[in-house]
């Protein structure tokens, strides 16, 4: 029973991260019918931006302290209140930087190919992915960098600790926020309209370039948050860290029904829990096998994914 609860907690934590990344895939797919293979790198870049901004605010050997701002660092690391503000700044800053990078990539690498055959932007995305990985490898570091250990980890037993609670709660808040954004707001309606009929949306006065740019801001921003979580959870970042979480999150998006937001969330949590349970009860080596076996089974019976539209041909 202990192991079950422990693995459930781990699974939900992991699932929250998968869900955040999966949303980026599914949002872009919903609007452009394109798999943004560079999205895993958004996650990675977000983690790096988070790492450096966190270091700047908290590492006495680095950043703010060397600029004579020790007082600020002491404020941020000295109290719970300071920590909350610091993490809020770090997450928002990283989200914005990564979001802007996402918009830039869309502008440079995808928009010129919008009317090209569908394979072209896909290849372009792979190119962007390789470029970003190598940019970080060359210009930042080829080795893993330790994530600053400033988050106060308090254990509550059963493998539950304050960091996992923080990750799960923040993920859920963001997921609800995005769901509200898409279902309730004007921008959300414009996004749904654009995904259903781009031409008609334009003729209703919707600037689809803006809608697509917003999509490419939101997805990477959420991916960046997941990246920081990942860094905090595993204690390090490295240039190719996006690969596996990216593949997993993409799988989660497909499992839930690609293009469907709630599907991506469901898929993310399911995949996280399945992986953790397999690791806990069968063997760590089998966790990916079981996860992908379940994906295949789901797709055989529901090709559109769990919440995806079941494809029924009208006669």
């Amino acid at each position, binding site marked *: 029973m202990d192991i079950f609860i422990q693995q459930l907690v781990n699974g939900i934590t992991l699932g929250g991260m998968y869900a955040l990344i999966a949303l980026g895939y599914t949002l872009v797919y919903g609007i452009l019918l394109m798999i943004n293979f560079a999205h895993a790198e958004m996650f990675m870049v977000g983690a790096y931006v988070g790492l450096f901004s966190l270091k700047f605010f908290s590492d006495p050997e680095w950043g703010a302290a060397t600029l004579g701002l020790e007082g600020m660092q002491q404020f941020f690391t000295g109290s719970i209140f300071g920590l909350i503000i610091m993490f809020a700044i770090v997450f928002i800053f990283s989200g914005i930087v990564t979001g802007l990078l996402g918009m830039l990539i869309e502008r440079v690498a995808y928009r010129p190919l919008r009317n090209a055959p569908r394979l072209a932007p896909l290849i372009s995305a792979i190119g962007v992915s390789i470029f970003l990985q190598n940019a970080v490898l060359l210009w930042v570091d080829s080795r893993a960098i330790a994530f600053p250990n400033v988050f106060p980890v308090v254990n509550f037993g059963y493998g539950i600790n304050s960091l996992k609670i923080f990750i799960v709660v923040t993920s859920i808040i963001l997921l609800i926020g995005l769901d509200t954004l898409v279902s309730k*707001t*004007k*921008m959300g309606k414009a996004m749904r309209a654009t995904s259903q009929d781009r*031409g008609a949306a334009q*003729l*209703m*006065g*919707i600037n*689809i370039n803006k809608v697509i740019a917003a999509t490419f801001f939101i997805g990477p921003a959420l991916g960046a948050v997941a990246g920081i979580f990942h860094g905090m959870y595993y204690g390090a970042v490295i240039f190719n860290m996006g690969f596996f979480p990216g593949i997993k999150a993409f799988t989660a998006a497909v499992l839930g029904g690609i293009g469907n937001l709630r599907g991506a969330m469901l898929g993310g949590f399911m995949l996280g829990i399945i992986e953790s349970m397999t690791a806990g009860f069968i063997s760590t080596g089998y966790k990916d096998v079981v996860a992908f076996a379940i994906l295949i089974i789901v797709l055989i019976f529901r090709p559109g994914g769990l919440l995806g539209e079941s494809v029924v041909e009208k006669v």
Partner: protein
Amino acid sequence: MTSHLMEARGATIRFGGLTAVDNVDMYVDVGEIVALIGPNGAGKTTYFNMLTGIYKPTEGDILFNGASIVGKAPHVIARQGISRTFQNIRLFPALSAIENVMIGRHMRTKTGALGALFKTPPARKEEQQIQADAEKWLAFVGLSGVANELASSLPYGAQRRLEIARALATEPQLICLDEPAAGMNPQETAELNLLVGRIRDAGVTVFLIEHDMKVVMEIAERIYVLDFGKLIAQGTPREVQNNPAVIEAYLGLGADALMAKHLDEGGDDA
């Protein structure tokens, strides 16, 4: 004369070797109901596509309120006041009827994403206003009862009217209806005729493509006739009805006469 609401001067569009719309002069004045008719493939929808910015004319100019709209993006033209419906219905199928209409209100509102997300008082007020406007337009086309149904689940005639409501919600000065009566039964067609009249009475100029000659003769004040991309006639319904060129275009000529007519580039009488 630049006082026309919409005016096309020598509008031409070519797709490779095909001239789909050929040197067309046309205008629509404020408060009119004008119809564009012609046989299948005459270039009517292509003309609408030029007017709404989907296609850019190869030659010629299209003015709206005296200013050229050639080369402007569809959403910019929509914001300037031209709205349209489609020959093959293009609603947002997975949105409810009222959400479809609210999309039409989209560009006339200001609230940013943050305001909407945090429900600031101005955002909340605007949201209520959008809702009220959307309900008003649904009622205008007689769809109040199905506001929350998915657009794709509505009967065909209702979908056509919903498209009109969505177009009206953008507060256009000119509404372009592409075959609004297509596929409608006589009862629905009669209702549509009344609706078109009410749209004009609400202050929106109507420009429509129609196949159903009966509809056109009943509601249009002026008619333009396209055939093979060329404007072959214009005038009141009565004038057009009795125009030999129109009768030829609709009922056909013998092959020889058709060929001769084709080779003859001289302008037909109007």
